């Protein structure tokens, strides 16, 4: 059986460099194999030791569970230690990740927007042009971390009929009792954005 699929990890800021090279080696290390530090391991290290978040907060930022975060972090430390001790290069690449950007909210027109160009700071709201915008944290640590299943409804795209979502049954597998079409997922308005 194939192993369980890994959840995509969210990386907010990709590293500014591609890796590290050792210097001043006593014997030639040219032929040594570099250690491959994954993007998610870099991100775990950045959140935990640079941004000083605890593992629970950092796991929410990366969109994984707390134990998974701790495993990623432990593997990062192990790889870095290996590179230090054996005098190997560190190559930061790969990993099951997606990149997310910083989000902002505008008070003048009540919209949210992101900044795809990380190097250029946002000067005005792209929609209404006002400068009354704030940095918007996509993750609110005080809120419940897990999705509340009762926040999810199945909705029929044809006639708009809604019913309570059954846990464990995908909305697409549900059939609308009125018109017999497949249902879709609908989240209630108070549900958090992610």
């Amino acid at each position, binding site marked *: 059986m194939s192993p369980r699929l890994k959840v995509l990890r969210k990386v907010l800021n990709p590293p500014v460099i591609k890796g590290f090279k050792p210097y001043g080696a006593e014997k030639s290390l040219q032929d040594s194999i570099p250690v491959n530090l994954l993007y998610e391991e870099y991100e775990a290290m950045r959140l935990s030791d640079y941004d000083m978040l605890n593992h629970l907060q950092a796991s929410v930022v990366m969109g994984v569970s707390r134990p998974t975060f701790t495993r990623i972090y432990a593997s990062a430390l192990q790889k870095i230690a290996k590179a230090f001790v054996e005098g190997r290069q560190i190559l930061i690449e790969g990993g099951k990740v997606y990149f997310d950007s910083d989000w902002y909210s505008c008070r003048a027109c009540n919209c949210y927007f992101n900044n795809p160009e990380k190097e250029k700071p946002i000067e005005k709201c792209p929609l209404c042009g*006002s400068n009354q915008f704030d940095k918007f944290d996509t993750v609110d640590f005080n809120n419940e971390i897990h999705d509340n299943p009762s926040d999810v409804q199945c909705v029929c795209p044809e006639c708009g009929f809604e019913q309570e979502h059954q846990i464990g049954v995908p909305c697409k597998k549900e059939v609308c009792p009125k018109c017999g079409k497949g249902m879709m997922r609908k989240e209630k308005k108070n549900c958090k954005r992610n």
Partner: protein
Amino acid sequence: MRIAITSTGNTLESTIDQRFGRCAYFVIYDTESKAVEIIPNPNKVVEEGAGPASVNLVAARNVNKIVSGEFGIKIKSMLDSLKIQMIIMKEPEKKINEIIEMLNH
């Protein structure tokens, strides 16, 4: 600069569509020439992968920004790598011409 707005209808009086991948129409607005192009979304009825297909549709028209009510998780990472800015407008009553007016600020 070209901006795509998701729309529920094919006129400028229509309201913004709260979904991106399965919106009815895309309104593509050019801020320099003030030209408006309305294209129907063929991905409205597909069962799966409507979001990525819609991203390809608007990215082929060289847009820099997209205004919609919501963006799915697959789309966010795609648009991030394409460097297209996402603007989330959570007001379903907003009309397309009101949004175009705001964009002209």
